[in-house]
């Protein structure tokens, strides 16, 4: 600052021009006079001086040019020096108040770091293009029925062939059959029998996605159809690495899958994770035998992806798909109700489920950053008030308003960037924590990482924060009334400053209230989820998943094998009960069957209702702890030649036999074949713990069997300790039986609760953070108030004011701010509530308990935050307070 006063003023172009002219004129005049002294005439002397000089015009231009350069350089240097000076000054003044600096930098680091971490997830999942060529032209296609209640149904393999044959606006269409943890083939002939997670893909699957093989080749079209040489397999990159040591010698060798030789033709690149990262091999859909999946239109099991031709719009694609499906519906009676198709961009189809949650999260974390900014702004304001005198002195010494402003902005930027650098560290850790918390629930999570875009975002967030929390204090401080500041010893404009700070704190409390309401709602929702009765007792239940090979055990004899395995497992010491179902709860619904009471007539034009049907063994319900409401569950005698029987759940009984006993009633599929209801059982939440159970049917696996088996055992001890003996019991029947997976029922409860738990943990974290920041804000403004008004308080006390009234005055201010913040925050939360409704279970987004809890909590916290400053105010010694002036 001082140096600046003694510096030469900057020279303009005009000044430089006239300076150069002056210099040249002085030279010529001096020379002319010297020559005249030797006796030359005026004119002759002038002429000679000019001649001796040489090219004056060229010299003048050159000198001006060089001088302009010099001036530019000087200005640049001045600028750099000023910046360096500002930086040095900023660092020094921050060092002088370490508490302020640490609190401010940490607050910013948390705000920026949390924001950056969430951004890295949002960016990776929602913004990164899919790893396919021209991904914007890829769409997912589903069958949709006329009534619109099933808009995203899987597609039948027969329909898919027709779609592909009739396409015009699509470059290609492909389909796959894959259910994570369920679709697989048994690999034998090389060591332990192994279940390989398999995607069964149609011709067109690879060509639609447009990704080639990393090694080898993709199957030819002729290798993916019936009658072709379709025993070929393509390996996923991780499977190839894990099982074949990333060696290309595996190409053209054979793997024994389901007892048949398959030729390995190719390996996919590492970023090819479609339709799921858990796919290990790709095998033509044509290899699935008809007895497993009949090739008829009602069997809808395929996912479909299609690639639009260039310049074809989504609307055109939709129109074409509706024309094709409409045509098929008219042509085939079994398709009569499947008149439409749903077409969505592939990216949206993949990320749609998490998009809302991520955006809500991003909004929340932006709120935290804003709060952090408000808090730091409040801190900076306190400092600015304390520094009014210092600034006044500098203004008196000749610093301009702009100069002071720049100094303060530099200080803010230093704080913001320090917060940003630390924040990147927070973000790296935070991103990792987020990914760990959301494992298995976040599609495309492999694209998430702290990359240059994310770093750029962190920088942007820091600068944004710096401007935000630096602007208001800087503008206020730089307009400091010099005279007043010097005279009053830095006690001016207290009222205005307190008002601004109070406004900031109110804004902050409002933000915190919104976050806390979110935390309250998600916590209550999660609590509701925890107390849902899933319809079974998950403790001490172990499940073993496997598929029976009918080639090995015979088309009918496999049921005996099935019974033998269950019997053998029941005999294991420590197993109190065992049974089996097709799918464990939350792991699959079972095929839908149009099983309705005899005599039931669907309304005209309406498709007959169909219900998920599980194939189970005897003693299944007893094993998993489901109540039998009336009748009985299956017995070992409910086998092939016995009368066909069915068990229904409560929801089914209520829907079709309200007020009656369903046991003994008969069900039928389209009038042919009758099954007698032998029991009604309590509702099991089969699809998701958060989803209310609908009608479900159970048939005996010995009567109408499926080869996918989930064996469930109730154990005395910790079920995981029983894994080995139960597996050995299975292998004692067939030592080549591959096991797909083993898990406990508590595992699947945890899995299904993972997402709501994640949401709850995140909201709770934000809520606590918000509450802490809000409390700090209230405390800060009250502490400041007490310091600023020390003298006034002293006078009041000296004049005989009751200590309690002083106490109440401070408290009133704090609680007043909290109430104002609560009013704004609650209104905002109510306005935003419809956005969180989809995240909630069992409570409305306007849940009064959550809101009331937040109000009480904030009033309590505001009181707590006011306690210390209010007590300090009460103890102000009037003598000391007045002497301080």
């Amino acid at each position, binding site marked *: 600052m001082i140096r600046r006063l003694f510096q030469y003023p900057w020279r303009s172009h005009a000044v430089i021009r006239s*300076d150069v002219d*002056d*210099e*040249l004129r*002085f*030279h010529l*005049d*001096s*020379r002319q006079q*010297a020559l005249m002294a030797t006796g030359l005439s005026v004119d002759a002397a002038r002429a000679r001086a000019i001649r*001796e*000089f*040489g*090219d*004056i015009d*060229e*010299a003048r231009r*050159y*000198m001006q040019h*060089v*001088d302009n*350069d*010099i001036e530019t*350089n000087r200005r640049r240097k001045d600028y750099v020096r000023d910046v360096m000076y500002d930086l040095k000054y900023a660092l020094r003044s921050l060092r002088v108040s370490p508490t302020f600096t640490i609190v401010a930098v940490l607050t910013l680091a948390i705000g920026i770091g949390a924001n950056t971490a969430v951004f890295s997830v949002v960016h990776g999942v929602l913004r990164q293009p899919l790893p396919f060529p021209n991904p914007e032209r890829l769409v997912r296609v589903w069958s949709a029925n006329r009534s619109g209640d099933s808009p995203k149904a899987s597609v039948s393999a027969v329909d898919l062939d027709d779609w592909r044959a009739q396409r015009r606006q699509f470059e290609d269409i492909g389909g796959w059959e894959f259910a994570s943890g369920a679709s697989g083939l048994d690999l034998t002939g090389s060591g332990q029998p192994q279940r390989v997670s398999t995607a069964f893909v149609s011709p067109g699957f690879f060509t639609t996605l447009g990704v080639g093989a990393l090694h080898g080749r993709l199957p030819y079209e002729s290798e993916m159809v019936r009658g072709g040489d379709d025993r070929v397999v393509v390996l996923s990159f991780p499977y190839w690495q894990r099982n074949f040591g990333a060696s290309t010698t595996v190409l053209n060798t054979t793997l024994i899958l389901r007892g048949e030789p398959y030729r390995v033709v190719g390996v996919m690149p590492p970023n090819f994770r479609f339709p799921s990262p858990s796919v290990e091999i790709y095998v033509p859909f044509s290899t699935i035998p008809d007895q497993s999946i009949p090739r008829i239109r009602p069997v809808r099991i395929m996912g479909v992806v299609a690639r639009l031709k260039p310049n074809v719009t989504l609307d055109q694609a939709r129109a074409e798909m509706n024309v094709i499906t409409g045509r098929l519906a008219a042509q085939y009676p079994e398709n009569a109700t499947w008149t439409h198709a749903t077409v969505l961009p592939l990216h949206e189809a993949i990320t749609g489920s998490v998009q809302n949650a991520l955006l809500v999260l991003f909004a929340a974390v932006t709120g935290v950053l804003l709060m952090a900014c408000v808090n730091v702004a409040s801190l900076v304001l306190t400092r600015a008030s304390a520094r009014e005198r210092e600034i006044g002195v500098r203004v008196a010494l000749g610093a301009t308003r702009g100069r002071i402003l720049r100094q303060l902005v530099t200080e803010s930027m230093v704080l913001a960037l320090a917060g940003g650098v630390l924040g990147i560290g927070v973000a790296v850790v935070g991103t990792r924590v987020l990914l760990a918390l959301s494992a298995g629930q976040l599609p495309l999570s492999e694209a998430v990482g702290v990359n240059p875009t994310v770093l750029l975002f962190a920088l942007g967030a820091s600068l944004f924060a710096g401007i935000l929390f630096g602007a208001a204090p800087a503008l206020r401080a730089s307009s400091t009334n010099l005279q007043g500041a010097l005279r009053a010893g830095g006690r001016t404009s207290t009222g205005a400053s307190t008002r601004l700070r109070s406004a900031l704190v109110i804004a902050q409390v409002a933000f915190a209230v919104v976050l806390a309401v979110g935390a309250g709602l998600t916590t209550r929702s999660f609590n509701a989820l925890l107390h849902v009765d899933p319809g079974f007792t998950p403790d001490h239940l172990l499940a073993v998943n496997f598929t029976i090979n009918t080639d090995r055990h015979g088309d009918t004899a496999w049921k005996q094998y099935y019974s033998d395995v269950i019997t053998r497992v029941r005999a294991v010491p420590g197993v109190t009960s065992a049974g089996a179902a097709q799918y464990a709860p939350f792991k699959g619904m079972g095929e839908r069957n149009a099983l309705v009471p005899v005599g039931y007539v669907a309304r005209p034009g309406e498709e007959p209702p169909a219900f998920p049907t599980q194939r189970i063994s005897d003693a299944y319900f007893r094993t998993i702890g489901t109540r039998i409401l009336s009748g009985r569950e299956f017995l070992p005698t409910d086998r092939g030649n016995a009368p066909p029987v069915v068990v229904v759940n409560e929801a089914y009984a209520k829907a079709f036999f309200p007020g009656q006993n369903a046991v003994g009633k008969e069900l039928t599929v389209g009038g042919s074949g009758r099954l007698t209801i032998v029991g009604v059982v309590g509702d099991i939440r089969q699809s998701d713990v958060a989803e209310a159970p609908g009608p479900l049917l159970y048939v005996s696996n010995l009567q109408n069997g499926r080869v996918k088996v989930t064996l469930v055992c109730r154990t005395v001890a910790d079920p995981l300790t029983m894994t080995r003996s139960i597996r050995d019991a299975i292998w004692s029947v067939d030592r080549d039986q591959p096991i797909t997976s083993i898990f406990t029922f508590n595992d699947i409860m945890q899995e299904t609760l993972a997402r709501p738990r994640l949401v709850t943990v995140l909201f709770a974290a934000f809520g606590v953070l918000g509450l802490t920041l809000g409390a700090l804000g209230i405390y800060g403004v009250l502490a400041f108030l007490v310091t600023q008004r020390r003298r006034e308080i002293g006078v009041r006390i000296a004049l005989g004011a009751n200590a309690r009234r002083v106490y109440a005055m401070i408290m009133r201010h704090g609680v007043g701010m909290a109430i104002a913040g609560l009013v704004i925050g609650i209104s905002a939360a109510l306005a935003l509530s419809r956005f969180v409704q989809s995240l909630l279970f069992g409570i409305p987004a306007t849940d009064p308990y959550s809101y009331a809890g937040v109000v009480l909590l904030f009033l309590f916290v505001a009181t707590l935050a006011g306690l210390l400053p209010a007590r300090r105010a009460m103890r102000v010694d009037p003598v000391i307070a007045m002497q301080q002036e």
Partner: protein
Amino acid sequence: MRQPMDLLQGTLDVLILRTLVWGPMHGYAVSRWIRDRTEDTLQIEDAPLYKALHRLEKAEWVTAQWGLSENNRRARFYRLTPAGRKQLKAEEAAWRSYAKAVFQVLEPA
């Protein structure tokens, strides 16, 4: 045989720096000082001299400041900077060794 030599590139810079060793001078004084000592040998025009002065200022070997001349007129005075002094020493040494080499060729011992 007494043809005035063309000024070698950079020579003028050295001469100016050397001249300013005596103290701050305005352009005219520098010009006179160099002319007085080299009139017979070197033919120096004033244009390149002024250009050199400004160039040296840009190189920060000299600084310029307005002052009053002997006859009380506003004149631009040039002053050697420490960097300029260092540069002069380096150039002088280079010149001496150059001249020595040339003489060794011209006057074989």
